[in-house]
């Protein structure tokens, strides 16, 4: 038997007792994730977790488990990211003992029935083959950017896998993967809510029955050095151009300098806020799209989440900018007679504008006033990340991943001591606009023209409708002139057909 608690990630426990709460939350975080998918079987970790949580136990079929849980309204869910997999359980305290028997069965004796496996595999295949390409162009461009940024590394493929990878996975692969990567030695257990010490001890002791295998998580790999600005345009039937761009960045929440980047990032493009610079210039002033934001770490499901969810800690990081779909030339020509001869939509202009703002921040730094306001905002705002028992527990568990105890409190302490100079220094150290990657999901009618415009650094004057144009102040039109001619270090532009992505 391997020694208990010998390893930094070996069945540690994170507790959050809330005796007044009505519910109990249990999270089992395994240090594995999609980086553990073997080559040629991309998607295996996700499929393994789905087979466990959408299957039965040795004593009960999936349907029987569902029937038993139903009156309790208890539920379990799973999330898999690049470096962790989390299986979460939530139940009203009235039903904890009955529910726990099911948790135990699912974790220790999953049934891995062929028909459950076939069902979840088919759904995962369908997600990769059809859903990601057709349900949201912005999510598509985000996934495509990760694929582009991390080529040659274990981070490249989507957590859901690749088309060929999923096809190759068998039920035996799933069973083996579960034994190999879901063990007592790579597990953090989190419990929150209204539970007793007896319950905790039972849970700990039962989870020691998970396989006693030493887990070796593969290295993430170092992303290839980017030479210039590289663009991939994904061409499909689309109503707009959805843009994601970024570059790998060697810093995570573990590093105290992260607080400085939080301020810079929040000022530039706080997620779903109207007061970021990018939002203000692209949406509020120029009416180009629905919103524009920047990120210094992975933000899960940004279209749905207003606050960053826990459960996606990573050791490889990147800076990114999200430009929500902007108009394409075809739509502009159809909608406005004054634009009946425009050749190109707004993507090139938006990319230039966003990168120019990053460049300005690197060169000019943040003003003292903006620094003060943004720091004050963040010190309140980050406390909203941990309102529910589940999110609070999740953030505490993520803290362990990063070698911290309580990330939210520690960041607040770091923000309190931060200066404008710290922010300027961190921006100069970690951000640049010369070498990065861009993915654009756009309409077939736009792709060639956009590619040529980017490749040739062609000036991209903003094509406003008369509605907007007539009232624009001079400082905006002057700035437009500079943006339209802002030189980008573009080295490579290629066009990819949608059906050729995520193979």
């Amino acid at each position, binding site marked *: 038997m391997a020694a208990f608690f010998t390893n930094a990630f070996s069945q540690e426990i994170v507790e959050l007792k809330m005796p*007044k*709460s*009505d*519910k109990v939350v249990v999270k089992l975080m395994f240090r594995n994730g999609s980086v553990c998918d073997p080559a040629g079987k991309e998607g295996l970790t996700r499929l393994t977790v789905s087979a466990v949580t959408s299957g039965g136990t040795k004593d009960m079929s999936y*349907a029987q488990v*569902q*029937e038993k849980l*139903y*009156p*309790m*309204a*208890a539920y379990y869910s799973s999330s898999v990211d690049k470096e962790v997999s989390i299986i979460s359980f*939530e139940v*009203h*305290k*009235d*039903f904890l003992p009955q529910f726990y028997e099911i948790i135990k069965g699912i974790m220790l004796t999953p049934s891995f029935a062929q028909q459950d496996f*076939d*069902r979840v595999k*088919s759904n995962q295949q*369908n997600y990769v083959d*059809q859903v990601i390409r*057709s*349900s*949201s*162009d912005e999510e598509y461009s985000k996934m495509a950017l990760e694929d582009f940024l991390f080529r040659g590394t274990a981070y490249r493929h989507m957590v859901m896998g690749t088309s060929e990878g999923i096809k190759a996975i068998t039920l035996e692969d799933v069973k083996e993967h579960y034994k190999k990567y879901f063990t007592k030695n790579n597990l953090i257990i989190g419990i929150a809510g209204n539970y007793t010490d007896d319950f905790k001890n039972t849970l700990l002791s039962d989870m020691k029955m998970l396989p006693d295998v030493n887990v070796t998580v593969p290295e993430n790999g170092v992303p290839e050095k980017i030479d210039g600005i590289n663009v991939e345009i994904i061409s499909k039937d689309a*109503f*707009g151009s*959805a843009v994601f761009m970024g570059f790998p960045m060697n810093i995570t929440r573990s590093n105290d300098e992260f607080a400085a980047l939080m301020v810079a990032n929040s000022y530039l493009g706080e997620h*779903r*806020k*109207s*007061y970021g610079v990018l939002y203000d210039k692209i*949406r*509020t*002033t120029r*009416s*180009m*799209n*629905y*919103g524009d934001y920047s990120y210094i770490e992975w933000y899960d499901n940004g279209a749905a989440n*207003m*606050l960053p969810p826990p459960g996606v800690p990573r050791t490889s990081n990147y800076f990114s900018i999200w430009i929500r*779909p*902007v108009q394409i030339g075809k*739509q502009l020509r159809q909608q406005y007679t004054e634009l009946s001869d425009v050749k190109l939509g707004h993507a090139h202009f938006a990319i230039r504008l966003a990168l120019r703002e990053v460049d300005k921040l690197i060169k000019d730094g943040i003003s003292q006033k903006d620094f003060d*306001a*943004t720091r004050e*905002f963040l*010190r*309140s*705002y980050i406390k*909203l990340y941990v*309102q*529910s*028992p589940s999110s609070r527990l999740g953030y505490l568990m993520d803290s362990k991943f990063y070698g911290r105890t309580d990330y939210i409190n520690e960041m607040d302490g770091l923000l309190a001591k931060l200066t404008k100079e710290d922010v300027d220094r961190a921006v100069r150290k970690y951000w640049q606009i010369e070498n990065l990657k861009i993915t654009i999901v756009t309409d077939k009618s736009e792709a060639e023209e956009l590619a040529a415009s980017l490749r040739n650094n062609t000036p991209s004057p903003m094509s406003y409708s008369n*509605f*907007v144009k007539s*009232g*624009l102040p001079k400082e905006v039109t002057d700035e437009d002139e500079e943006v339209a001619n802002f030189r980008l270090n573009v080295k490579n532009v290629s066009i990819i057909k949608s059906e050729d992505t995520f193979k």
Partner: protein
Amino acid sequence: MKKLLMILLPLLICGFTFMNGEKIFPYKIHQQKLPNGLNIVTVPFESPGIAALYIVVRAGSRNETEEGVTGFAHFFEHMMFRGTDRYPKEKYDEVLKSIGASANAFTSLEQTVYHMVGNSAKLELMFEIEGDRFQNLHYSEHDFKTEAGAVKGEYTKNISNPSAQLYENIRNTAYDKHTYKHTTMGFFKDIVDMPNQYNYSLKFFDRFYKPEYCTILVTGDITPEQVLKLSEKYFGGWKRGDYSADIPVEPPQNGTRYTHIKNGDVPPVLSLNFKGPAYSDTDPDSPALDLIDNVFFSQVSELYNKLVVNERKVRYVNMGTPFSRDPNLITISASVKKKEDMQYVKDEIMKTLEKAKTAIVDAKKLSDAISNIRYSFAMRNDTPGGIAGMLAYYIVLTGDPESVNRYYELYGKIKPEDLCNTAKKYFNESSLTIGTISADDECPVK
């Protein structure tokens, strides 16, 4: 605050026993109307340092009765962030940022809701900026036209999803007269024309942004006295309006209608939409439909086990009853693996609905479903924003957050035969609209 906690404590300790007659919502709802008609609702509960302020305007796309201006309730939600003379947009953003709140808004069929969750110590500042913009909104024609582009951008991002296209088509097909015919985003031609409607926007504000349409709802680490005082200070001078939208009544539908999207790049979708009832917390139809959903279409139903788990012809099948102030659509949808199976899946759903009309549901199944509904409710309410969002829903439907307690009490009164009666009333082919997405040229089901 201490006194309040002492009152709350027994409630928390008791938990949810769900006896008949006991209120489902575990916290006390304090409610009072100001003389100008503005409703003030406060729900204090333990959430140290955090409060949620929701302003519920009972006007949404349902109120858009005039030609050419669909989508305006939503567009107006955008305009509410364009500032006042006292707090122009930049200044408003600056103050909002200083509050450190998560703030946003959304519009739906019946409502526009402005919400902020943040530091409870800054509640007065939240009231001040909200009170100002609700009474003194002032934007230029240029700002108005510029914001129209953001709305079009929102439409552009949404419509990349074929399900959004199908939803738009289904509403347009199912309704002839009622304003549920258009989605909250509005018809695209109206969105493109929005910049021309500056004067209409002023009229819209004058009609609906009035105290009698609104409720101020505050939850979390606050007291009712504090909220009432702030409401009087910042909203007390707001003048009552007198507009009432004349919402057209939808005539009865006479026969099944169809709408189809040809798209072979996405999984086939089958959507069956029946005209349902308006929400009511006194009539058994709404809770009976919830129970039909739970018994016949949830993940423990026979149909789900047959189509999803055993035959695996379908990825999901579910039923949705979005209760609204007027009769809305009850939707049963399925993601079908092969388009050739769409007719079979439709037939299986229709057979299940026939069963719902005639078979008396087993008492245990019914009590399990009620237990699921009630415990699901109990598990959800653990943040100020979560509680405010849930209560806002009932305020929108009836004007009164206590409706949630009345509604959940109804479940205990539902008998198995009520399910049959309700099913017979609503699941008729004459009021059905079928929406499909597949590679076929025409709708592949009859």
